[in-house]
């Protein structure tokens, strides 16, 4: 597989929650315009690692980090980093669809409106339309843009949330088990979408579902008890794991 430029570099990264070490010395490179999956048993720290990439863990009291995560060469935990700007570059889609109690239009326009000056706000209509199209939800909502987003089904809500993230024009999109609250049909739609989005974006996805990792990702990181056990191309790792633990996990001997 051709390797592209590495967009994200995680170097000796550790995270403490109060005194407990939740992530330990993790190092991995996340290539651009690829989908990288993070898998592992419950509580292994996969969501924590994902949320470290846009510094969402800071919302929790008692979190401290060591090591570095570089986005295009710049340490995001560096002293002069504007965390608001970071989050505009690194978008996030959450486990449960969480549209705001606003209209569909206002949901998608939100990030643009919050920007300091951002792009001209007069082409907001256009931004909303193209983001919704990119998230493959435009046809389903184009006639009800000004109705509450809460009226949509879970799968539609999640795609609106993806459109909302895309509207800010991020470089990296973090997805925290984006389909775990959805039914199989809605899940298939999200996976198709992820597959198309990697043409433009670098995607990191947390999943507890091995088949999903196999379907959507190019690279996979296997985490256990806060440590990175193995990282490599998904095809190779799922067919020919290099580590005994990985093999046991993907064959379902523990979960």
């Amino acid at each position, binding site marked *: 597989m051709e390797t592209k430029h590495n967009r994200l570099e995680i170097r000796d990264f550790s995270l403490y929650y109060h005194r407990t070490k939740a992530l330990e010395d993790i190092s991995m490179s996340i290539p651009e315009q690829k989908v990288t999956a993070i898998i592992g048993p419950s509580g292994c720290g996969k969501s924590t690692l994902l949320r470290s990439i*846009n510094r*969402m863990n800071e*919302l929790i*009291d008692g979190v401290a980090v060591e090591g570095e995560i570089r986005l295009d060469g710049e340490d995001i935990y560096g002293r002069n980093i504007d965390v*608001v*700007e970071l*989050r*505009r570059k690194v*978008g*996030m889609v*959450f486990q*449960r669809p*969480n*549209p*705001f*109690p*606003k209209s569909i239009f206002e949901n998608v326009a*939100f*990030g643009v*409106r*919050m*920007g300091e000056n951002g792009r001209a706000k007069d082409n907001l209509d256009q931004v909303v339309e193209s983001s919704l199209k990119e998230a493959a939800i435009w046809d389903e909502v184009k006639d009800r843009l000004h*109705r*509450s*987003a*809460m*009226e949509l089904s879970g799968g539609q809500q999640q795609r609106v*949330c993806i459109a*909302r*993230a895309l509207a*800010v024009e991020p470089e990296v999109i973090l997805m925290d088990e984006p389909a775990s609250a959805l039914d199989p049909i809605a899940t298939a739609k999200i996976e198709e979408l992820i597959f198309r989005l990697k043409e433009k974006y670098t995607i990191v996805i947390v999943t507890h579902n091995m088949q999903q990792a196999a379907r959507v990702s190019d690279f996979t990181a296997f985490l256990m008890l806060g440590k990175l056990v193995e990282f490599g191309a998904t095809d190779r790792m799922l067919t020919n794991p290099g580590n005994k633990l990985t093999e046991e996990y993907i064959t379902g001997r523990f979960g």
Partner: protein
Amino acid sequence: MSLQRKKFRYLGESLIEGNIKATASLAIVVIFLILFFILRESLPIFFNPEVQQEITFRHFFSGIQWQPVSDNPRFSLWPIILGSLKVTLIALLFAVPVAVAAALYSSEFAGGRLKELIKPGVELLAGIPSVVLGFFALVVMASFLKDLFGWQIRLNAINAGLALGFAVIPAIYSLAEDAINAVPKSFREAALGLGATPWQSATKVVLPAALPGVSAAVLFGMGRAVGETMVVLMAAGNAPLFSFNPLESTRTMTATIAAELGEVVFGSGHYHALFFIGLVLFAVTFAINLASHALFEGLMTRLYGARK
């Protein structure tokens, strides 16, 4: 195993259930008894010819004077309705921004320790007896404001409104804080994840999401303000003037009842008139509660979509 129900198996549960039902109904019964009592004391104005020689419904809405104990008594409700409106409006103009801002601050920005100080602190304000608040407004605040702004009249609608504001801040704060706190954490995460600042997240996402609850809190505060008696009785100067000027003394409906009912001749026109004021107050409070409910439902539908 038999599926036959054993005798008395659910006896305990049905006893408890009946008990709760009785207690709940009692509250409703009491409300209706109060309403019935007020109606009974105020309706003679409409039906009793003897009373009507002294006062009829027409008197309430003609003229602009409330002078129930003069040789030529006048019973116009306009000055005291206006007084209630004026004082309530001033109280809300002061209390709503303070209470809502405090609620937003303590739930969105204050750190753990500070938050645990603010909430009980504000709620402690609710424990101050209104007579103490009224005394403070009468003796301390009125003089202070008069000197500060060079007012002609010490006890006026602004003085009473501010004091009344202090009385309703805890109620509005407490309900608004609950509403803001109940906004799911996921909305805040989504907002911050999209590159909103904490201030934007609080004002553009959390507060709008809590709007149904916050507006219900404001209307609840309004109901309290309309019904509060002691503070306005002491701080407003108690002159039933028909005036839109907030710097003049005023008197509210509640203060009128409180001040006059103790000395009124039982069964007189004046006596029945005071009960009619009570009926008006009852209707106003009821209307505010209904409006609050309608506003809450309307906003919920607009924000969160039609309930399935």
